[in-house]
């Protein structure tokens, strides 16, 4: 056949594109298409938290907790100077029943709710002024009385709940509630959300309460330039 010699005598230049294409395909497949692994790293204490792109995270909650608890303990410190002292002259620790964190913000807290509880609980427990009652005791008290956390401010409910804890060796001086709220301002494709954490400390003996708050404002944008457009530092001079 006439085509036979042509097949084998075909100039290399004509087959080269095919060979190159096939080679390139394989190389691209191997080099670009390899699936990567997932990696993790430890974040040093002085490194900033990641800033959540769609909702609040550590960058919002950690400073909120630190500030509100510090304010509350500071107020308690001042009050304790005029309060009861032990025979050794030390201020007597008051027991706090941390009832829980209430989320009234626009966002689902997800796994952060228990984290917030534990952080507040631990910081209170470390203070000289207060002694936090174990969460397990609080949960057991709620289970036994079948009272809703938000119904404990009704005097009868409060007495019942406190008497159950007192029976178990945990007298309650204060009830503590943490409430997270948010306020959202929309502007085209950007929005600003103000997060407010409020701690309410209620004296179970007198019914008096103190309240401390801290807030963090955060902007959300659909593009990287959104921040520059909406929070332009030069705008403040106008």
């Amino acid at each position, binding site marked *: 056949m006439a085509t*036979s010699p042509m*097949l084998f005598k075909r100039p290399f230049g004509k087959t080269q594109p095919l060979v190159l294409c096939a080679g390139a395909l394989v190389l691209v497949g191997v080099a670009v298409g390899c*699936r*990567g692994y997932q990696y993790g790293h430890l974040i040093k204490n002085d490194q900033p938290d990641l800033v959540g792109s769609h909702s609040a995270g550590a960058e919002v909650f950690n400073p909120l907790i630190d500030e509100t608890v510090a304010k509350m303990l500071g107020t308690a410190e001042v009050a304790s100077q005029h309060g009861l002292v032990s025979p050794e002259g030390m201020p007597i620790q008051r027991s706090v029943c941390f009832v829980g964190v209430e989320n009234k913000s626009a966002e689902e807290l*997800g796994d952060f709710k228990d984290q917030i509880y534990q952080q507040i609980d631990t910081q209170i427990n470390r203070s000289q002024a207060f002694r936090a009652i174990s969460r397990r005791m609080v949960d057991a008290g709620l289970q036994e009385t079948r009272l809703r956390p938000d119904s404990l401010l009704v005097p009868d409910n409060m007495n019942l709940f406190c008497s159950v804890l007192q029976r178990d060796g945990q007298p309650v001086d204060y009830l503590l509630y943490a409430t997270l709220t948010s306020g959202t301002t929309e502007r085209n494709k950007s929005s600003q959300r103000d997060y407010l954490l409020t701690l309410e400390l209620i004296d179970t003996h007198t019914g008096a309460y103190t309240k401390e708050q801290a807030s963090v404002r955060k902007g959300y944008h659909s593009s990287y330039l959104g921040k520059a457009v909406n929070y332009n530092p030069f705008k403040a001079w106008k």
Partner: protein
Amino acid sequence: MSATGGSVAACSLALILGITASCGCSTHSHRLAQPRQLFYSNQLDQAHEQFDKLSEKKRRSDSSVVELDLAMIELVSGQPRACEQRLRDIRDRWDHLEQDSALESATSMLTDDQRKAYSGEDYEKLLLRVFLTLSSLMQDGVDAESYTLQTIDKTDDLREKAKSKWGDGVLESYRVPPIAPYMRGVLREVSLSNYDDALRAYQATEELLPAAPFLVADIERVSHGVHSSPGHGVVDVFSMIGRGPYKTEVAAQATSDALLIADRIVSVIGQYSVPPTLAPIKVPEIVSSPMPFDVLGVRVNGVPTSTTLPLTDLHALAHQTFNAKRSDIMARAIARRVIKKGAVYVAKDQLNASAPIASLAMDGLGVAWEATESADTRCWGLLPREIQMLRLELPSGTHSLDLEPVVNERPCGRPTQCTVRVEDGRNTYVLGYWPDMQPIGQVLVNNP
């Protein structure tokens, strides 16, 4: 034989070898038909053995779906821990495989989509996390809440991806399975101190199931009431009913959307363009068997009490999310056909196979090459069609439950009995699978 004839023969042989190597012996659905039938006939040990043999071939591209079926067998056999472990492994593997592999994509364009490592359909990724929740609840439940959050997060993630690929129109198809927020509500409520979270979760479920009557009671309870009266606990009965969604191969006409996408794919690869019409192409389609009965009637200590009610329609979930990507699947099949035809023409041209016999042989090989292609029917085949639930508040102590299929408000099957121990202020979970009129394996109780 002339030199050209010899060359064509050699090339033909190479093509035949290539085709043989590239095509599977049978489709996924055929391969698993027998063990799945064993499962449905309640021969769990035999089914497990057969699936186990298939899963040992780790390099098989469908090993993960075989393992999903194994996890299902383990769950209904009363081994939720083994089921959870297996599902966790698959979840992590699929998360890794979600990244694109250009090599696999290129190979799949020469063979079929089954050449790609299977990273699960979107509905399977969500349901995998739902079953992780259920299998955790059937033990100590320590990770159940995390799994519900993972399901919600995964839905958000898939919605974002779907939106960027196919636009806002598909968002309606990508909705969280209602069981996920509902389970979160159940778990937050039983903590007795997080009624606000439970309310949010039940409200989110109500948005997905506006007609569900039990949600009205749930929302009212967590808004103003308590989990249960003193001295009482709650039994949550979860029933999996019917044979769930699976993929089957169908011959479909190319749609205009698919032709458009295919044209984009082909134009990237070469100078060829997609013809305006094509013979039908093989694509997978989601199908489910009809429900064997409506709901499950529950008798408590012999007294007819209530029935389970639909919580998640797995068929609808699978159908909606799969339809969103149907044009893409079709486009790939079209592009593949064009590329294969193009490759045969190029081979003919390169080999100068102008003689009628050589040309016919090459055409025949091209047809054989196309014929080896089959639709990707890999799927989690042992899913139920629907998950239903019933919440019962009962006094603390041991109770006997009879679960019986109900059609048109009348019992129509043999009841299955189980014993539950109700604890004051706690939840007890019951889970069973009725693909047909009888349950498979055992009805699981986390607190028997």
